[in-house]
Structures are given as C-alpha cells and as structure tokens.
C-alpha cells in the first residue's frame, strides 16, 4: 500500500504514511471531506509522508477552502522534500494553513 492514513490520539489528528499522489489522493480527500463538515483545526502529521504531488496539494487546498475559515489545516513536521513542494505551491503563505515543526504543536 502506497499511502496509509492513521488516526492519532487526538481528535481530528491524522498521520500520513507513505507517498501521496494522484493514484491515492482521493483516499485522503474522502477522509478530509468528512472532517471539514465540523469546525475546528484539522492536524496532519506529515513526518512519515515521503512524497506529495500536485494532486495531493490540491486535496489540501480544497479541504482548506471547505473549512472556509472555521478552522485551519495544520501540517505537522513535513520532511524537507515535502516542505519544498508546500513552499513552491505557496501553502506556507496561506492564513488557513499552518506548517509547524514537531515542538510547535501546542501553540495557538
């Protein structure tokens, strides 16, 4: 299996494990579609996500759009190559997405 999505302890917190691309982006999309109905932040631990393509980015942007200010998408500890893609696609510039390191999680 290319991608695994695991619920971590907290509510609305998931860990993505593997490679996210157009072949499996809709799995993530299905999970997020359900979550964005409720308000509040959604946290995605990316420390074990080793690859993301434009389809994966698009799923994140769409979830952000659908949250529509009722919460943020928090991207936790992306690997350097995934972080590079997030930056190229401008996700770090958006108010409704936060990219944080492992220690920063408790902050507002």
């Amino acid at each position: 299996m290319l991608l695994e999505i695991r619920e971590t302890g907290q509510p609305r917190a998931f860990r993505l494990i593997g490679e996210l691309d157009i072949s499996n982006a809709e799995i993530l999309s299905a999970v997020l579609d359900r979550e964005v109905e409720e308000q509040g932040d959604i946290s995605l631990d990316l420390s074990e996500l080793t690859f993301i393509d434009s389809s994966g980015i698009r799923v994140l942007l769409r979830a952000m759009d659908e949250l529509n200010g009722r919460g943020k998408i928090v991207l936790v500890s992306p690997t350097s190559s995934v972080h590079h893609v997030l930056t190229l696609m401008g996700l770090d510039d958006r108010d409704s997405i936060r990219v944080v390191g492992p220690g920063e999680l408790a902050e507002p």
Partner: protein
Amino acid sequence: MVRTFPARRAILREIRQFIRQQARAHALLDEAESLALAVTEACANAMIHTNCTKIGVTWKATRDRVEIEVEDDGIFRRRVPVPEVDGGGGHRGIPLMMALLDQVSISGGTVSRPGTRVRLVKYRES
C-alpha cells in the same frame, strides 16, 4: 536508459523508483526528489489528458545536466482548460515542472502522429 511503463496511476510509484535509482547511480541525490516529482507530473498529465496506453521514460545524465524524456502514445488536447469550468483551479502540473527544473519542452502529438513528448532538463550545481 529507457523504460516503458503501462499508463496506470498505480504505476507512478514504480516510475519514481526508477528515477530515484538513476539519480542515486549518477550522484544526483539532492535532485532525486525534484526529478521524481517532475516526472510524476508529466506522467500524470499523460494519463489525465489522453487515453494513452503506455509511457516511455528516458534517462540521460551527462557531466553538466540530467535530461529526462517522458513520451506517451496519446493525443495532445488542443484546448485550453480554463480553471473555473474544468474544476478546481487545475492541478498546475506544467508550472510545477517549470518551478522544479531548468528547462521544460512540450511537443504535442497530433491525430496523425500521436504521442506527446515532455523533455525535462536540470543542470547540475557547479
């Protein structure tokens, strides 16, 4: 070094493994992930926009650069997808390839001569 893959989404990961392996073999570790992503986007475009059946990936590394060619057997769509109609802002594959690499060439196939060729070039740091 040429490899041919069936045009299926589930194969993209294998295509990346091929690229990563070549990158390692040619001392291009820092570029491996950018190349793997650009090639993923080029192959995904072929699968999304054409009914191609196979995709050829050619790797060529020289002293000063890597050149990867992605060739499909589909027909290039001569229509400009405008985001609001075609849904969700487009996936922006070509701009992403351009942001990752130094040179991107696209030669569209035609009905009489199908097959789109995308040439991706990255210079070695020097």
